[in-house]
């Protein structure tokens, strides 16, 4: 092996670091560490001169490892890695010591202790850098084809954008027609455009685009592969009507079987052979075999076949499974609406004149079951007065706790529609807050008030029906005027909220996505990667991600298409070299690693007796490495040896006074950074080791720290449900529970090991945890430390 030549650069960062830490002393200390040939301190290492200095030293002193002690690696690691690369040093041979966010900024007034801490951090970085290995990032080719799941307005827009860019797109929709929710709606806010009039041209564009293959009445069954190379199985269910169909409707007229039309929410009927709505794309009819008289093998009725001049009906069609290969996937599976029959006090399904906002859309629609007349169901007459009830199933423990985003504006739009057709109808809107936050929204709200719509703050506690007239009494408290109201209306419209789609769990499983506590799919980063799913090559659009209106859905769809397009235009993607390498000699083929991998990126080849890592699917969390009991997985850049070297370096002096903390890159390490940026002060005796995920923290790391006499150990990760590696932190929790039990068994105080969930915004949570643990250390007896040293000796 070549001789190690390490260069250490201690940055003053103006006075940000040098104001607290004696940088010169730290650099002098660094020079005494093994294999360090150059150690310097300078004002701004990240400046051009600072980088030039490193580059020159790499050449002049033949450095083959570089450590920079400055700010957080989350900030400047890419900068310095690039500088190293430019000087011909592999970028994986660089390491950072965070002496700003984790040291000078959080110990502003403890100059000596902070300087000692900075030395410790540099010692750990030098220990790690000595063990780093050069790595080449793997390149994965990206197929230039995309799959869009869901044919609502978001899916259509994403498909059109990608197809126009020149990529082949498969658009999969489970319903017989694309169009989704937007096709059901009458008008759109705030411009009052006719919904289907603006959607239908897009639908037909998608239907006849040469680059789009429309797969309606189809469902995704299986997804395998990884970014750039997905293999997707799609079940295409038969329509029993061929493409020769001219959509004349003669078959439908002849069909003797009727059923409620789902598209009209059962307010109108359809036949067993039907098209859900006039503008459906494809316009080809479809036979509902659930209700058709012809069952498998028995042809009882041939009326549609006889009626069809073009002989387009074929009962012999069979379901087909298509195997598609695509490079990127856009999930635009949409949302469902809340079912208000659970809220008994509103009487939905008991009182005919209580309807939902979606039913209202069909009633007010000229193409709907009532020809655009707002008929109340009990007597089919135009009502004298209507009441809108807001937040039904939203912002309440009874339904969903989140705001459904669109219902306020939808109601305001509906109120104006009613006033436009029947100005005499009296309209009440019962609300909690009116959220008119978007462009043009407030104007619409004002117009509605000007038209005489009465807005009353306070939802009705109960809706009661007058048996004789079928009118409704709405009873509740007006919280602005502090009085009880009892208002009669001919009809009540429940403004129902938006819910995650019922198939969400299937989609989640298929694509290894994660969901928020509300049930919507989670984005990779809420601010800066809002359309990327955590799984590489998968993007989100529309209501699948969160409730949103048409404009936002379309915006997000175009964004998702652009993001997918970037990958496909590049044609390849590099994978950070932090993936595991199996060591076959050590492997016992136990399969534990495959079970904990959140991405299904590790497989066992039983015949070859080999563990294989699919690099493109692996995100590098390291949970597998922590689970492996036999050192059979070499977690690159975060190897067992490297992390143990860090632990050993940090516990070399006064270990019993120190807290060794393992923080995950995304949440808790970032949270500690945030504490630094906010100058939250906490005790100086904590030493943070960065891993990509708390799931990387193997039991033996913690045991090693105790064996070396560490006073306490902290493991910190993202909150459960927020893990950046889907659910890898569940493994953290399991391991911690195991270890607590073991500590109890061997008679070590289990309170010396803490687990903390802290998000990137929770700097104070990190700081107060350190404070709390610091008080424990004060009471720590030397006998207790000896006990743990003995108990875990050898680990």
């Amino acid at each position, binding site marked *: 092996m070549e001789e190690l030549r390490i260069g250490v650069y201690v940055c003053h960062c103006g006075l940000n670091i040098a104001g607290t830490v004696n940088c010169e002393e730290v650099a002098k200390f660094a020079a005494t560490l093994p294999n360090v040939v150059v150690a310097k301190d300078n004002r701004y290492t990240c400046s051009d001169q600072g980088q030039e200095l490193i580059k020159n030293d790499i050449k002049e002193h033949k450095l083959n490892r570089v450590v920079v002690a400055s700010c957080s690696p989350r900030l400047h690691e890419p900068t310095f890695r690039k500088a190293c690369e430019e000087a011909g040093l592999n970028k994986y041979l660089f390491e950072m010591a965070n002496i700003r966010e984790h040291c000078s900024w959080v110990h502003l007034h403890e100059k000596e202790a902070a300087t000692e801490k900075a030395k410790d951090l540099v010692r750990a970085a030098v220990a790690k850098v000595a063990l780093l290995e050069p790595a080449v990032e793997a390149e994965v080719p990206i197929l230039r084809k995309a799959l869009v799941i869901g044919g609502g307005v978001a899916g259509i827009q994403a498909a059109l954008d990608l197809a126009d860019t020149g990529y082949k797109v498969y658009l999969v929709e489970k*319903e017989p027609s694309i169009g989704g929710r937007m096709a*059901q709606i009458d008008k759109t806010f705030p411009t009052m455009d006719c919904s289907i009039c603006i959607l239908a041209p897009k639908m037909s564009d998608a239907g006849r685009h040469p680059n789009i293959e429309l797969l309606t009445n189809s469902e995704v069954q299986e997804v395998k592969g990884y970014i750039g190379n997905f293999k997707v199985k799609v079940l295409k269910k038969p329509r029993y009507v061929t493409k020769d169909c001219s959509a004349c409707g003669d078959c439908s007229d002849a069909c*003797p*079987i*009727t059923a*409620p*039309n*789902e*598209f*009209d*929410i*059962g*307010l*109108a*009927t359809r036949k067993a052979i039907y098209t*859900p709505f006039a503008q459906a794309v494809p316009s080809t009819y479809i036979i509902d075999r659930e209700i058709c*008289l*012809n*069952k498998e093998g*028995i042809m*009882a*009725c*041939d*009326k549609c076949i006889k009626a069809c001049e073009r002989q387009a009906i074929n009962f012999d069609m069979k379901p087909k499974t298509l195997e598609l290969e695509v490079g990127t996937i856009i999930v635009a599976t949409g949302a*469902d*609406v809340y*079912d*208000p*029959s659970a809220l008994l006090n509103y009487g939905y*399904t008991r009182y*005919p004149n209580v309807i*939902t906002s*979606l*039913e209202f859309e069909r009633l007010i629609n000229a193409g709907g*079951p*009532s020809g655009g007349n707002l*008929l109340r*169901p009990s007597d*089919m007459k135009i009502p004298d007065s209507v009441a809108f009830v807001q937040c039904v199933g939203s912002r309440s423990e009874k339904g969903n706790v989140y705001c459904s985003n669109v219902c306020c504006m939808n109601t305001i739009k509906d109120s104006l529609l009613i006033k436009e057709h029947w100005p005499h109808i009296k309209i009440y809107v019962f609300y909690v807050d009116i959220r008119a936050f978007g462009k043009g929204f407030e104007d619409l709200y004002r117009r509605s008030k000007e038209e005489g719509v009465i807005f009353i703050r306070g939802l009705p506690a109960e809706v009661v029906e007058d048996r004789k007239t079928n009118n409704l009494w709405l009873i509740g408290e007006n919280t602005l005027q502090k009085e009880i109201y009892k208002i009669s209306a001919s009809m009540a419209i429940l403004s129902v909220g938006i*819910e995650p789609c*019922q198939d969400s769990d299937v989609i989640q499983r298929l694509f290894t996505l994660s969901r928020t506590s509300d049930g919507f799919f989670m984005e990779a980063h809420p601010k800066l990667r809002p359309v990327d799913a955590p799984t590489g090559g998968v993007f989100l659009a529309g209501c699948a991600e969160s409730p949103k209106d048409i404009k936002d859905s379309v915006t997000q769809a175009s964004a998702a298409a652009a993001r997918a397009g970037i990958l496909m235009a590049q044609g390849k993607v590099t994978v950070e070299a932090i993936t595991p390498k199996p060591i076959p000699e050590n492997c016992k083929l136990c399969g534990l690693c495959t079970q904990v991998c959140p991405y299904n990126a590790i497989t066992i080849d039983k015949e070859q007796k080999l563990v294989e890592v699919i690099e493109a699917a692996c995100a590098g969390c390291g949970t597998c490495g922590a689970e492996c009991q036999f050192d059979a997985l070499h977690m690159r850049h975060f190897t067992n040896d490297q992390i143990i070297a860090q632990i050993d370096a940090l516990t070399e002096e006064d270990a019993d006074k120190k807290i060794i903390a393992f923080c995950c890159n995304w949440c808790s390490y970032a949270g500690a950074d945030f504490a630094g940026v906010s100058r939250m002060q906490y005790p100086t005796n904590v030493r943070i080791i960065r891993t990509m995920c708390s799931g990387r923290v193997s039991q033996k790391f913690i045991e090693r720290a105790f064996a070396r006499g560490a006073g306490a150990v902290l493991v910190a990760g993202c909150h459960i449900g927020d893990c950046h590696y889907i659910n890898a932190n569940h493994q953290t929790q399991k391991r911690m529970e195991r270890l607590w039990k073991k500590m109890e068994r061997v008679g070590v105080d289990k309170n010396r090991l803490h687990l903390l969930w802290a998000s990137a915004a929770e700097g104070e949570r990190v700081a107060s945890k350190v404070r709390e643990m610091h008080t424990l250390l004060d009471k720590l007896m030397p006998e207790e430390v000896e006990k743990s040293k003995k108990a875990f000796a050898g680990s």
Partner: protein
Amino acid sequence: MIVPQKLWRKPLDAEKIKTPKAEIHIIKDLCKGCGFCIEFCPKKVLEKSDQLNKKGAYPPKVTDESKCALCGFCTAICPEFAIYTVEKKCEEGCENGRKK
């Protein structure tokens, strides 16, 4: 399908929908009691009666004529030509295909 909420409402056009109404004719004495019509009727309109016919068989009887969809499958499969259906003629003043 598209709507998760259960479809509980009677469709507004349920009364207006024109479904042909059937008259089912059974020539009892031709029936040999094979039961095909009963077994294969997709709407399960027929059942075995308890009246013997000349052939010593139990011919079918109609349970609910209004359920018949006039598919004509019983006529097609009857080996003895003993059953047929005709669409009810709509008399004058008849509304929506239904007698007043």
